[in-house]
């Protein structure tokens, strides 16, 4: 997928998220809906600025997503996965033995797990980016 297609895809996802936020707001879920709309707008602005920068660099002949970026992204993804898998296994093990029985909303749990995974990936990406 090239840079332009990636940009179009991210805009489509943002429009969908904004639409869901609007629907939720009108359905009475104002904090969730407003948060989703605000988040979508913030990400749209950041994406638009980033896309403009990428277009400017590409116009100068440079390739932003070059082999080094994929090398760093690959290492970050691998280390994020390993850290997440080992951390989860440890929590499951310790929680099964000593932890209390708790009821969880599976959607909340998935959301928390996803945000941990993404945070790990971003952290590792910046770490390996500074190292290589």
């Amino acid at each position: 997928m090239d840079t332009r297609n990636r940009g179009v895809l991210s805009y489509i996802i943002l429009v969908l998220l904004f639409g869901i936020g609007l629907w939720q707001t009108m359905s009475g879920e104002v904090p969730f809906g407003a948060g989703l709309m605000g988040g979508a707008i913030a990400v749209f602005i950041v994406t638009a600025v980033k896309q403009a920068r990428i277009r400017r660099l590409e116009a100068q002949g440079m390739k932003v997503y070059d082999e080094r970026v994929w090398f760093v992204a690959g290492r970050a993804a691998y280390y994020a996965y390993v850290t997440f898998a080992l951390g989860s296994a440890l929590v499951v093990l310790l929680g099964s033995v000593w932890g209390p029985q708790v009821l969880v909303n599976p959607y909340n749990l998935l959301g928390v797990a996803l945000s941990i995974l993404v945070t790990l990936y971003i952290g590792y990406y910046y770490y390996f980016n500074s190292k290589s």
Partner: protein
Amino acid sequence: MENRLRELREQHGITQEELAARVRVSRQTIISLEKGKYNPSIGLAYSLARVFKLPIESVFIFAEGEE
């Protein structure tokens, strides 16, 4: 892996941006290569060597024992 990129680039009067544009990578990649923090693929090494009209082994110095 050591390399002579910075020395050759300065000899040829090319900026990091110009070199990046010639081999279709980012300026950050050229910086990393010059600092020896990143080892390029064979394709990129070949493209860089071609910019300076030199064989790869004259630009990148592969020491014994390096993987």
